[in-house]
């Protein structure tokens, strides 16, 4: 079993190499489907194995733990990896359907596989420096994916994205330098044991610095300004994958580092404030927009707030709610961006004032949008409701009324901004538009919607699994024993 964590990183990278060598687009496509499909199969296998027998650890090159590079899949990582891989596969389907319509593929497959490998590595690594490398693999692939069309808009928005991420990477190096200087190790389990002896104020500074670094990656208040500017200009499949996965990898790492390194066991008012501010600013930004993809981009920010809300409570139920929220959000957000892409294919634009009457023209797109939008707002019986209910229940149980009120208010505003898209794009007089969304694109989006409905269908077992994963997170001893033996 212990080869699986290495497999999900190496397999897509190998595939990326192969796609560089072959000329035929058909073969590249097959290799990419195999690569991403292999990661999905391995991730689901890992999830079952990890849930049954505990964390699966791979010591690369058989070097013993604090010396070599460790890859570790615990329940939390396996859940996020499985959901991410299924979204990568669904979006690949969408992209394939879109590319069939006569566009050049710009070496898309190579970058897509590299992105997959980067996501896997960032989620599974048990080593701070390898995490840096994983992030860079993921980011470099994303830089190139963002600029595939290299028009004026793409260049402008990607520039912001690259610069802000380079600054974050430099700060990440500073974090690594400080951690190494303090503890003499970059193995995360080893850091966790050694940081316990470090002065509490130094630890607080380190915790804040890590929050800044990963906060930039995940779009936390007030470090989110790059996100709504850079995501919407890219081609739809690219935006959908970024929206679903990249920021969530940042959130994953925030949750991992804060629980593993700093041994916090009471609600953090500071983090609750950041969570609330992220929610409010994100949703208010969304209301001010008039383009489908831009509205959805601001909602990413607002939703990140809910995940941090779950983390900030530092309780088993709170973290479990955050994990369920991440699962729900990755699926729903990817799906919404794919629907946004369908709207763009129909009208040639996502601007609200130039779309309208899609309900009559393509009812199926409306049928795909509605469950996702209601789920994002958190209405029952959709998956967003399950996740938000868990958050609110734990918030009330811990007596944090303010943040609960803020999160409910933001849900209402989310619903408002979803009705805005609905009213402008789906209702109204049918407007003339450029083209038609292909059947393959609709089917791929339909798969994501089905998965999102599936999340609410298996809410019970999923919550139980999340509770077990959260218990692991709050008990760093298990992680440390798994890595160091």
């Amino acid at each position, binding site marked *: 079993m212990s080869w699986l964590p290495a497999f999900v990183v190496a397999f897509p990278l190998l595939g990326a190499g192969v796609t560089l060598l072959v000329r035929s687009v058909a073969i590249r496509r097959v290799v990419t489907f195999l690569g991403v499909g292999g990661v999905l199969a391995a991730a689901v296998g890992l999830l079952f194995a990890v849930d049954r027998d505990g964390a699966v650890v791979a010591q690369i090159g058989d070097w013993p733990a604090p010396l070599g590079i460790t890859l570790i899949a615990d329940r939390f990582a396996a859940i996020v990896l499985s959901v991410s891989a299924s979204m990568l596969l669904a979006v690949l389907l969408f992209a394939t359907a879109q590319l069939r319509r006569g566009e050049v593929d710009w070496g898309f497959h190579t970058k897509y596989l590299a992105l997959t490998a980067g996501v896997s590595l960032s989620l599974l690594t048990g080593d701070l*420096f390898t995490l*840096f*490398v994983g992030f*860079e693999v993921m980011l*470099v692939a994303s*830089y*190139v994916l963002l*600029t595939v069309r*290299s*028009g*004026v*808009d793409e*260049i*402008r928005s*990607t*520039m*912001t994205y*690259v*610069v802000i991420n*380079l*600054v974050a*990477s*430099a*700060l990440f*190096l*500073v974090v*690594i*330098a*400080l951690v*190494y*200087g303090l503890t*003499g190790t*970059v193995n995360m389990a080893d850091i966790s044991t050694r940081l316990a002896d470090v002065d509490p104020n130094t630890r607080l500074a380190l915790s804040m610095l890590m929050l800044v670094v990963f906060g930039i990656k995940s779009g936390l208040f007030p470090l989110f300004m790059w996100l*709504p*500017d850079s995501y919407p200009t890219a081609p739809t499949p690219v935006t959908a994958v970024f929206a679903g996965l990249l920021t969530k990898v940042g959130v994953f790492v925030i949750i991992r580092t804060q629980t593993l390194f700093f041994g916090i066991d009471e609600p953090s008012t500071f983090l609750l404030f950041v969570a609330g501010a992220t929610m409010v600013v994100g949703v208010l930004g969304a209301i*001010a*927009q008039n383009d489908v993809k*831009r509205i959805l981009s601001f909602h990413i920010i607002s939703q990140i707030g809910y995940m941090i809300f779950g983390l900030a409570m530092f309780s088993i139920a709170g973290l479990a709610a955050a994990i369920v929220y991440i699962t729900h959000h990755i699926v729903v957000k990817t799906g919404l961006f794919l629907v946004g892409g369908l709207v763009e294919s129909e009208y040639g634009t996502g601007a609200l004032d130039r779309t309208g009457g899609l309900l009559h023209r393509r009812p199926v797109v409306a049928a795909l949008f509605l469950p996702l939008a209601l789920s994002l707002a958190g209405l029952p019986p959709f998956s967003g409701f399950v996740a938000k209910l868990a958050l609110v229940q734990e918030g009330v149980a811990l007596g944090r009324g303010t943040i609960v009120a803020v999160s409910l208010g933001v849900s209402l505003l989310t619903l408002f901004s979803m009705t805005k898209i609905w009213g402008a794009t789906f209702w109204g007089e049918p407007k003339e538009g450029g083209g038609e969304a292909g059947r393959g694109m609709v089917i791929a989006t339909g798969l994501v919607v089905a998965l999102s409905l599936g999340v609410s269908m298996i809410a019970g077992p999923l919550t139980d699994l999340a509770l077990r994963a959260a218990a692991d997170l709050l008990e760093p001893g298990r992680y440390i024993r798994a890595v160091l033996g």
Partner: protein
Amino acid sequence: MTLVTLTAAAVLFSAGTYLILQRSLARVVVGLGLVSHGANLLLLSSSVRTGLPPVVAGGDPQSMADPLPQAMVLTAVVITFGVTAFLLALALRGAILTGTDSVEDDVEDRRIAGAGERS
């Protein structure tokens, strides 16, 4: 020795930050280079031990420098190099398309600023 490296890192960081905040992309790229060098210096100065080159055939391991930060800096340098090259290509492409190398405002910002002026 550590003080010298740390001061150098601090100077690199402050000069780099100043340059990153400029409008001209060429300066931003140079600024990013400086900041990354600062981070690399800091990483080097976090070595547990300094000493002889860490070559296995070189004798007593206790008298050798700590090789891990050097390995990490090497990796970071390569990554920064690659990304900087990409950024320069991007800046060049932007300059060809728009005729300037200055960072433009977000489309949305311009729209909202325009709306404010009109009302």
